[in-house]
């Protein structure tokens, strides 16, 4: 089931909504969330909101001196999104 989630994401040609993905795989949404977290920890998926916030950590004027994605006015309102981690 865990690997099927990754396969489903890799095989997609269109952006996928997490709710839709949970329905497709007949999974509880909370279970899917924890699977996504697992793949983020394993480095197979990128948590984009988190990475944008980290990328902007040194840019204080825009984020009020904070690297927290919820406090940066330009990033806080971003939808939570993930993507497959590609190798450079």
């Amino acid at each position, binding site marked *: 089931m865990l690997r099927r989630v990754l396969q489903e994401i890799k095989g997609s040609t269109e952006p996928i909504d*997490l709710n839709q993905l949970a329905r497709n795989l007949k999974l509880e949404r909370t279970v899917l969330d924890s699977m996504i977290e697992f793949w983020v920890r394993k480095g197979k998926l990128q948590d984009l909101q988190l990475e*944008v916030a980290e990328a902007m950590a*040194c840019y204080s004027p825009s984020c009020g001196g904070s690297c927290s994605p919820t406090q940066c006015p330009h990033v806080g309102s971003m939808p939570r999104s993930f993507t497959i981690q590609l190798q450079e």
Partner: protein
Amino acid sequence: MVDTPISPTSPVVTYDTSLETEIAHLSVIIQENPTLNQQYTPRWLAIQLLESDSTLSAELHQHADLLQQAEASRARIIAHYQEEPDILLAEQRYNFVHQLTNQVLTRPDGNQLTFSDKVDQIVTHRYWGLPIFLGLMWLVFKMTADLSAPMVDWIDGTVAGPITNRVMTILAMLGLSGSWLEGLLVDGVIAGVGGVLVFVPVLMALYLALALLEDSGYMARAALVMERPMRVVGLPGKSFLPMVVGFGCTVPAYYATRILDNERDRILTGLLAPFMSCGARLPVYLLFGTIFFPENPGLVVFGMYLLGILIAIGLGLGLSRTLFAESEQSPLIMELPPYRLPTPRNIWMQIKNRTWAFIRKAWTVILSMSILIWLLMAIPITGSGSFADTDIEDSAFATIANIVAPAFAPLGFGSWEASSSLITGFIAKEVIISTQAQIFAVAEADEPFEETTMFEDVSEIVTSFGAAVLDTLKSIPLIIGIDLLGESDEAEPSALMTAIRQHFDEVSGGHGALAALAFLVFVLTYAPCMVAAAAERQELGDRWMWFSVIGQTGLAWVLALFVFQGGLLFFG
């Protein structure tokens, strides 16, 4: 319904035989060690070691033999399954949970669509999604222009009236009337910073509209819709994130390109991000939209934002087929929150944080620039004037700007007044407004000063504020086309607006609106501000920074020429 009762003492998850063999092997070693056997449950510790729990491995560094055995077990598992043990173990736990929940849970029809799903079928539709997004954006800018106008007029009137009067009265009391200090404070600081702060209500109205869309859950859908054009351009879907950040500010947009996997995507996204109109350009669009297209300033602002996106798409298509080869696409998964009613607290927090970032910039960058510009306007280069007592045409500022002004003549705004604001706009785009406010304030400095009392000033501020609030409320129906503001309620153009209108009409040979449109296209397209250029240099390197600065300015000149000269051909 529970079909099979589960004993709390039995291992609830049973893994594949090969995995169980290795777990059992490690469990025996752990059980044989009295210290470990007492401290940990053997099976649990064995699984953690197979999953490479780094914290536990560090704690168990004295048990080198156990760690060695665990490593050997991991190697055997990888050889057998061609997969890492932690993935296999997690996979089998999830399978177990999935089977268990299927046994004990009765779900309603899993395919039943929720309200959010039904709305999403329309707003994120492959073909209708984009027109709906553009329609909503047009509404956002219309709302921004309509709702903010009374408050803009109020701040403008307060800055130009009571605040200026008060400062001049205090200076007169100190015997400094007519001194250089009066010029610096009134024509430099108040005209410059005040000229930009006037637009705070505009930004607040924009942030209100965006916060409504964000808090309702729509913006996440808009991001999904924006993802598709990224793919058309040959960029990975996640490039939409730096682009969306670019609508707030270009500087963090450059930093956000770090999320992209390869240099090609980072550079291409970085080159296109400046075409997303940042918040600093909004006051320029709105000021010129209000002056030259008073019937539809919101449409002008919307048009500029849309033009920026279209230029980025066109350039992206061109660059990805020439300088940059196609790169691998990575699919995107997004959290689409359910639609909900926006909460006042969330909306206020978003408005406050974003507006505060703008005001902070006004007090730092714009204040410094206003003082510098005033100094340059106070120093005479030609004529017989002295410091702070010279004709502005003879000042160092006008002399410098006159060098580049002829280059803008074919674009319809070849005067030192217009070109100087484009030069200072390289420091920060808001400075375009503050520079013009200073230039035209100095030009009108000979107007008589009406001395007022403190009481008169305060009363004027309070009464005009009440009127502005009332007019703002009356403006709300304007969003759906109902005009409750009679002609008598509509504000007269400010002195700055009148001066800009007259100036553009004069310098363009009577085609002020066309020249203003060309000016706006130039502002949209030309080099990003100094801080953004520095961020671009840091992220993409010197070569691409210069490519961007020179390339964008060249493109801006060509597009503005096309707008002005093309407009003359059609409407001239």
